């Protein structure tokens, strides 16, 4: 049995991803913050962390990019979880349309509130209230038992905390996916991998980034993501996170690209080789 840590409370999208990745027969440990999650893994209190890294609508979660680097983590897998939001309220016998009219305050994570802006435009009497995370908001509604309060969270969180679903799929854009990576302290090497994450520290010379990226282009390797982050300890210098896919290519060809890259960069760190994630619905 492994201990898997995730940020948020039971029922959060991170929790759901952890459950799908590792199965129920493991121990899932909640962390209040992303940093706490990384601490648990580094101290050996958790075997892996389920880390949200980017969302298809709101972009990268920069804090986690930085923490992966800072804590020297290793990426062993990735998953894309479809984010479907529901409006949840405490159970009542009244008809749904009446209950919707009674709701004055809607609690949820700021990103979730942002992703449901069209819903609020259509229900102007509801006030969006920022809460620490989606599942925690659902839990709070279950405790408050107040018909004027509701939460935006997953259907799973609604079921977990005994709430009714008043409206479902209320996100503005149905193509709402969060990409999670599974991070461990301990290294491993997946010989079936078809995707890789890298961290590059470039030389401070003109064209250094172009020269580095050219090596991928020459080999016909497809980059799927590039993200720059400030380099710790330097002033306005950056390091680059790069993801690329190499399905159908020999691992040796990838290694040869790295060998050439090593000559062009100050530092190349392989964050992990892993299988490309599949799209999941929550």
């Amino acid at each position, binding site marked *: 049995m492994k201990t898997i840590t995730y940020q948020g409370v039971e029922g959060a999208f991170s929790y759901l991803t952890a459950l799908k990745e590792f199965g129920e027969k493991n121990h899932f440990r909640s962390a209040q913050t992303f940093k706490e999650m990384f601490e648990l893994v580094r101290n050996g209190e958790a075997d892996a962390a389920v880390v949200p890294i980017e969302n298809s609508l709101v972009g990268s979660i920069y804090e986690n990019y930085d923490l992966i680097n800072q804590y020297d983590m290793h990426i062993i897998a990735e998953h894309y979880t479809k984010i479907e939001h529901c409006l949840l309220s405490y159970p009542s016998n009244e008809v749904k349309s009446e209950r919707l009219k009674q709701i004055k305050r809607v609690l949820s994570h700021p990103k979730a509130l942002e992703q449901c802006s069209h819903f609020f435009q259509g229900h102007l009497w509801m006030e969006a209230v920022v809460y620490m995370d989606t599942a925690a908001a659902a839990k709070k509604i279950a405790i408050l038992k107040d018909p004027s309060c509701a939460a935006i969270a997953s259907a799973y969180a609604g079921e977990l905390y005994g709430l009714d679903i008043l409206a479902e799929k209320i996100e503005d854009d149905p193509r709402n996916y969060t990409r999670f990576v599974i991070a461990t302290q*301990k290294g491993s090497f997946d010989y079936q991998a078809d995707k890789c994450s890298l961290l590059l520290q470039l030389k401070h010379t003109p064209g250094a980034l172009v020269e580095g990226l050219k090596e991928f282009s020459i080999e016909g390797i497809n980059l799927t993501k590039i993200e720059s982050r400030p380099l710790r300890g330097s002033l306005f210098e950056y390091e680059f996170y790069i993801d690329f896919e190499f399905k159908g290519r020999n691992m040796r060809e990838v*290694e040869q690209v790295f060998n050439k890259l*090593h000559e062009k960069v100050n530092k190349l760190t392989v964050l992990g080789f892993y299988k490309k994630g599949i799209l999941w619905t929550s």
Partner: protein
Amino acid sequence: MCPQQLNTTSRKLIIAGPCALESRQQLKQCVQILRQMGVSMIRASLWKPRTQPGWEGLGSMSLPLLLEETLPHGMIPATEIISAEHALMVVHALERVEHNAQMLVWLGSRNQNHMEQKKIAKILATGPEGIILMFKNQMWEDEKHWLGICEHILSEGFPSERLMVCHRGFSPGKVPNPKGYRNLPDFEMAMRIKEKTGLPMLLDPSHIGGSKENVMDVCTIATAYQFDGHLVEMHCDPENAKTDKLQQLSPSEFQALLKIIQGPSYKRDAA
């Protein structure tokens, strides 16, 4: 790096590099990659004792090359020496380079003529203080013999402060070997030798494992034991390596291995 420091630091000693030195370009590339990974000791054998007749390494002429491409970059070179003649060459070469330069030499498992071992120890004892000596276990399983190597070396005046031991497994013989290790480890014996000699004990997972997967596996199991460091074979293009191509890790595989070796309690300086 002084072997004595190993017991006082949480960071394990990592010595990595190709099984054999093949060319200047190969060494340059390895130095560059290892430096980027924060590894400061590089192994590359010049003289290769072989199971069957084959390529025996670049030999004595490549010793200056090894020093030229490592020391100026802050890397400590490491190589196996087979004879007293090799020990003399190392001493002379190191005397000619910068003051305080360090180099690690080791006695391999096939080298079990105790008279030759003593000659080597005596020559190295009179050489520059930057010389660190390491001895591996012999090929057959015998705790007394392994301890004996240590006693022979110390009897010739080589200082224990610059001496280390390395476990590379024992020839499997006819005992069960379900994972197909090239050599079978006896971690408990290694820990007893460490305790009895008081010397840092390193692990050579490459010669125990014999294959990339096994090298990873051996290191994972060994995290339960108090090894002070690891001697790992890493090649920039393992498929085209001249020796031991099955057990040499690629740089990416080696980077993953580093995270197995350092374990969850390992804290990076920057963190």
